């Protein structure tokens, strides 16, 4: 399967990052064009692919994770974002036949992303 997928994990609790907003954009010339806004499901994933296989093209993409809002809504979370708020992850599809799984592991004070599988 080609395309783009993601998975949000709350590293501080070891639980899926459920209900996090993600804005998915594609590079269009000199700017980013919003394709869609997604909310992660109970498993921290998205019900539909972020980008379906048949829509995958070589290019630059952005996943904007709303990490600050996610933790602000958590019981015991900070009232306002303290260190991370929106976290953009920009990456390329360099071969449209491959799949790009781009997870987000986060706490209010740290985040990590990588090409997963």
């Amino acid at each position, binding site marked *: 399967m080609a395309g783009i997928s993601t998975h949000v994990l709350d590293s501080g609790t070891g639980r899926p990052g459920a209900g996090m907003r993600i804005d998915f954009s594609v590079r269009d010339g000199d700017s980013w064009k919003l394709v869609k806004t997604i909310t992660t499901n109970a498993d921290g994933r998205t019900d539909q692919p972020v980008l379906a296989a048949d829509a995958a093209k070589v290019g630059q993409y952005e996943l904007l994770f709303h990490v600050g809002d996610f933790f602000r809504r958590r019981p015991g979370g900070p009232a306002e974002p303290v260190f991370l*708020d929106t976290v953009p992850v920009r990456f390329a599809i360099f071969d449209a036949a491959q799949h790009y799984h781009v997870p987000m592991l986060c706490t209010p004070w740290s985040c990590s992303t990588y090409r997963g599988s």
Partner: protein
Amino acid sequence: MTHDVTLTRRAFLPAGLALGSLVGAGAAQAQAAAPAGLATAPVSQLNLSPRLTMHAIDIFHGSPGAGMKAQLSMHDGTGYQVLRRFETNRGGRTDQPLLIEESYRPGRYELLLQVDDYFAGRAATLPKPTFLSQVPLRFLISNPDERIHLAILFTPWSYSYYRGS
């Protein structure tokens, strides 16, 4: 724009020239492209005054992220405005704090790392376009009384950043 924190190529010249005199220019160039070895112990910044510092580690090569071009921007309400452009020093840090005293203000910041140029300079074999190219690290300074150390771990395929110490 404040003064640049710059690591010049001159910092690497003595080692390169010494090697060149022994084994020739080709080998010296290859050596220059290789990451710097670890020559320093960790630095404690305990009890330092409020400031923004950074440290980038290339965990692909197991070395400091030395000589990486970066720019620091601050959000002015409409967009991120560049405050300064710089290169990391041999230790993957900057010689001076990125922000300190009157320049250390609460706000939204973005550190943009030229990860593609960095790995191209180390002759890493990667697809084109590279998976990561210019990596934006966004963070807040929310308390001007506490310093922020931005710790960054990166490879051509991944990165992580966090409030370090």
